[in-house]
C-alpha cells in the first residue's frame, strides 16, 4: 500500500559529462514525502535510476555549504530545500558563474580564486581554508549576483564580505592593504546594489549590507576606485 502522503514529482536535472557531448536535462519521476529535500530526491535518483548523476554534499544540515544548486532558478542548499515547497516539475541546475566539473558539481577553485592570495582575507591554518564567521563559502551569492553574471572579473560578494569582516575585526591584519584591494572597480565599486546575495545567502552573512559597509568605509577614507 502506498503512503498517502507520498506524491510523485518530476525532476528536470542538468547533466554534463566531460567528453560525452553537450549539456542536456534528464527527467526523473521521484516519489516525495512531506520531509523530502531536493538532495534526498537527487540521492534517490542516484540509488534507483542513474548512479552516474553527480551531486556534491556532505553534512546534510546546511553547515558545510557544498550542496548549493539552483532550484527553479533560485540558489538553494539542496539539503534543506523542501520538495513540498516546489511545483510538480522541479528544475535543478548547477550554480551559475562557476565552471562545471560534472552534472551539478561546480569547480569551487574559481570561487576561492576571487579571494586575494596576497591578503589573508580568509585566514589559513596549515594551508587549509578556515571558515569565516557566518559565511559557509557555498558560492550561492556568486551564483545569484547579477553583476557576476555580467563580468567574470568582478570578485563577487563572498570575497568582499570576507574583506569587510576582516576590517571589522583585524586582529593585527594589514587593513590598508585590504582596503586598497577592495578599492577597485572590479571589487567593492563593482557592486551595483542588486542585493541578491543577501537573499541567496543561507547563513545570514548579509553580504550586501557588508559590501555597503565596506563602500561606506572607502568613501569616508576618500577612496574612489582609482578613478
Amino acid at each position, binding site marked *: 500500500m502506498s503512503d498517502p502522503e507520498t506524491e510523485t514529482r518530476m525532476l528536470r536535472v*542538468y547533466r*554534463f559529462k*566531460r*567528453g*560525452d557531448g553537450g*549539456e542536456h536535462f534528464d527527467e526523473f519521476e521521484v516519489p516525495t514525502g512531506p520531509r523530502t529535500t531536493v538532495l534526498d530526491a537527487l540521492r534517490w535518483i542516484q540509488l534507483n535510476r542513474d548512479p552516474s548523476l553527480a551531486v556534491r554534499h556532505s553534512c546534510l544540515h546546511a553547515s558545510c555549504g557544498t550542496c548549493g544548486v*539552483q532550484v*527553479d*532558478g*533560485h*540558489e538553494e542548499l539542496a539539503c534543506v530545500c523542501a520538495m513540498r515547497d516546489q511545483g510538480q516539475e522541479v528544475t535543478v*541546475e*548547477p*550554480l*551559475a*558563474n*562557476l*565552471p*562545471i*566539473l*560534472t552534472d551539478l558539481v*561546480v*569547480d569551487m577553485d574559481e570561487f576561492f580564486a576571487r579571494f586575494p592570495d596576497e591578503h589573508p582575507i580568509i585566514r589559513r591554518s596549515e594551508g587549509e581554508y578556515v571558515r569565516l564567521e557566518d559565511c559557509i563559502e557555498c558560492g550561492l551569492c556568486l*551564483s*545569484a549576483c*547579477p*553583476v*557576476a*553574471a*555580467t563580468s*567574470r572579473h568582478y570578485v563577487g560578494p563572498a570575497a568582499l564580505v570576507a574583506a569587510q569582516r576582516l576590517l571589522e575585526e583585524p586582529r593585527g591584519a594589514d587593513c590598508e592593504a585590504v582596503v586598497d584591494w577592495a578599492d577597485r572597480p572590479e571589487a567593492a565599486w563593482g*557592486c*551595483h*546594489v*542588486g*542585493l*541578491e546575495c*543577501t*537573499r*541567496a545567502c543561507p547563513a545570514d552573512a548579509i553580504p*550586501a*549590507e557588508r559590501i*555597503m*559597509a*565596506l*563602500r*561606506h*568605509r572607502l*568613501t569616508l577614507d576618500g577612496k574612489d576606485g582609482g578613478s
Partner: protein
Amino acid sequence: MSGSPAAELPGTADRAAPGPVHHKGPGPAPSGWLDPRGRGLGGRTFALHRITGIALLVYLYVHLGVLSMLLIGRSAWGDFLSVVTAKGFLAFDVVLMFGLLFHAFNGIRVALVGSGVAVSHQRALFWAATVIGAPLLVYAALHVFGGT
C-alpha cells in the same frame, strides 16, 4: 605495452577540457542579469534600472538624430511632428517618462544604499520612490495626452 596508457583512452582530451560555465538568463552569458527567476526586489530593480539606462541612452542618440531633421527643412520637420503627435505615438512618451522617472528615483535609491547610508531601508526607499513617482507619471501622461 608501449606509450602512456592514459593517452590511449578515447576522449582523454575532451575529459581534460574545462567544463562550461552555467549562466542564468535566456541568452548568451551576459544576459544572466535579465533572468527574473529567483530574483527579489533588488535584483528586479537592478535589471529594470539597467534596461531603462540603456533605453535612455539609445533614446538620446535617436533624439539627436531626429533633431538633425531640422537641417533638412521646415516641411520635413512638420511631417515628422504630425507623426509623433498622433495619439498612438504619444504612448511612447509615457513609456519614456516612466523610464526617466524610474531611472532617476531608483538612481537616488541606489546611491543612498550603495554608499552605505540607507542599506537597511532599500525596500522602503523603493516604495517611497514609487509613491512619489507614480503620481508624477500619471500627471505626465495626462499632460502628454492633453488632459491638463
